[in-house]
């Protein structure tokens, strides 16, 4: 990759801002697409509302019934989808960049399995409430990250071993999860299995606030360190020579990335593949300009909102978890990805 930092620099009175027209256009396009999907998502369902009625309700002059349907029922679910998708997209973008591996997303490196272990303990052993389960997922994910980081730490830096160690720890946790499921009573096992596929069914303002606060805190931190991320691509020695605190920046980024994924998982349960596919898709659209964290976040939000819309409208009776849809979509996306790369003859 020769263009690590692309775009043009705008200078004004001693301040300078770098922006990349193409990345900006992609981001704007994604936001517009997300807005369209959102309005459609809020307006359709058992009780149809026109786009105008939806927008009226959102800006505060809707009819009482439209207000109830939009603001109490559909909006929290949609916002959870958008925020969780965004968090996952950003988390995946950071980790893929750090590990230098398109497979380096939190659901492949064991973090999501760790979150699942925490939640499953809450479900099958403690029999905790929904918030307790979310707390378990959060603690599980973060503890797993600390474990992986500690195990990968050593001579030659963390990055080279991070993916490998993560996969190892992940496989261990996966089997711990299946142990918890086998030991549980039938009802608990069913609840646990259902939790293992993230769903947006019955998500309310509580989850929106949880994930919203997490994003408000973590995105600026990630943004600050992501600028250094671009320099890390030059290699540790070069980045160090340019004055980047390499180890510190990497540690901070891993922590933010994991925290984003852990909060997302706590809000909805594991949603597979958004963190893997969103950065790749964003990368393709933006042609590799910049670290792409924000573009990935928008892409993740769009993917999850679309998937949830699809699940709700295509299978209205089964309450299929959105995680199944993202799993299938993500898998099909990868197959397409491989197939097109094959035709192009690139390795």
């Amino acid at each position, binding site marked *: 990759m020769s263009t690590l930092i692309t775009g043009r620099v705008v200078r004004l009175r001693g301040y300078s801002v770098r922006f990349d027209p193409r990345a900006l256009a992609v981001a704007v396009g994604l936001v517009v697409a997300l807005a369209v999907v959102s309005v459609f998502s809020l307006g359709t369902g058992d009780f149809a509302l026109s786009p105008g009625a939806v927008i009226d309700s959102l800006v505060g002059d809707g009819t009482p019934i439209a207000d109830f349907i939009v603001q109490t029922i559909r909006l929290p679910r949609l916002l959870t989808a958008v925020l969780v998708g965004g968090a996952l997209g950003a988390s995946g973008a950071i980790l893929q960049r750090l590990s230098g591996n*398109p*497979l380096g997303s939190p659901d*492949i490196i064991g973090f999501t399995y760790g979150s699942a272990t925490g939640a499953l303990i809450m479900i099958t052993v403690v029999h905790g409430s929904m918030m307790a389960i979310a707390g378990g997922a959060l603690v599980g994910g973060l503890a797993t990250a600390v474990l992986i980081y500690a*195990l990968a730490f*050593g001579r030659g830096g963390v990055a080279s*071993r991070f993916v*490998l*160690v993560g*996969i*190892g*720890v992940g*496989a*261990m946790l*996966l*089997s*711990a999860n*299946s*142990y918890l*499921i*086998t030991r549980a009573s*039938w009802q608990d*096992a*069913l609840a646990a*299995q*259902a939790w*293992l*596929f993230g769903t947006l069914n019955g998500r309310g303002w509580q989850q929106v606030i949880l994930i919203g606060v997490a994003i408000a805190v973590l995105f600026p931190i990630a943004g600050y360190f992501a600028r250094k991320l671009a320099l890390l691509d030059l290699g540790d020695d070069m980045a160090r020579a340019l004055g980047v605190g390499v180890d510190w920046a990497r540690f901070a980024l891993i922590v933010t990335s994991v925290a984003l994924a852990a909060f997302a998982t706590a809000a909805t349960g594991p949603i*597979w*593949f958004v963190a893997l596919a969103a950065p790749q898709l964003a990368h393709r659209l933006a042609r590799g300009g910049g670290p792409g964290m924000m573009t990935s976040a928008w892409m993740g939000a769009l993917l999850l909102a679309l998937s949830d819309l699809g699940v709700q409208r295509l299978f209205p009776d*089964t309450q*299929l*978890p959105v*995680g*199944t*849809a993202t*799993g*299938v979509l*993500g*898998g*099909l996306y*990868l*197959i397409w*990805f*491989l*197939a097109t*790369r*094959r*035709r192009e*003859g690139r*390795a």
Partner: protein
Amino acid sequence: MITRTTGLLVAVVALGFVVLTGIWLGTKDISFLETWRVLWHPDGSPDSIIIHDYRVPRTILGLLVGAALGLSGALMQALTRNPLADPGLLGVSLGASSGVVVAIAFVGVSGVLGYVWFAFVGAAIAAVVVYLLGSAGRTLATPERLVLAGAAVTAVLYAFNTAVLLVDPRAFNQFRFWNAGSLAGRDYDVVTALLPFLAVGIALALALARPLNVLALGEEMSRALGANVGRTRIAGAVAVTLLCGAATAAAGPIGFVGLAVPHVARLIVGPDQRWVLPYTLVLSPILLIGSDTLGRVIGSPGEVQVGIVTAFVGAPVFLALCRRRKLSAL
């Protein structure tokens, strides 16, 4: 300096010990002398029945499944020249799982003998799809692409399994025990049904040692030396499917044996596949039967499924390996 032949003999003796321990230890307390006696002279006593009807077939199955998983992992690692290749990672185990899901939910099959064929077909399909996706038109399969293809197929199958099981709770209850990976409750019928596949798979795998050594030089080099790379890959894929499909059908997905044992073998004997494969063949059942026995001891009076134990035994070994040095070269 112990030679490699001596090392292999030591491993075989160790395997003998592990097999005996596996037959001896279990939920029902039977003294070692008694175990030894009824093992050779079955007398119809309860202890004798326990040993001959439960523990011996279970241990034999452990031998076969362990050997099959280890060899299929070693083959995958050699074929893809990827130290992370594993039946689980490349989607083959999950293919077998999906076969079983179909068997339980749509066909209404119950019992391992019924699962076997579905699991086998599922594993074969997954292996073929992953291989086709991973191998390019002009260039041949690259390690990264194979792993990506495996992850893609795994994701699709995982979503499929969960969707089916969520809609059908009865099938889920049946599936969750198979899915954890266990040798419990399998009898001689399972062993006999799987033996032909496993025998062919093992023979094929061992016969591939030389071609795989050539392949390790890199594609261009091995082609230049006159090796038939395509044939090696296809034969390898067939062996992997046979071994992994049959093993998974019998015991459910068991991870880490295929991933960890070949690394240990390479650590002992170096990269020569003519030694790596036999060592893997002997060492893998040690890990599997040992884990199975351990699961019965620590889980007493119930048991912890062997797939769970192998992960907890195999993963630290694996982690220690990738911490200690660069991964043993492929």
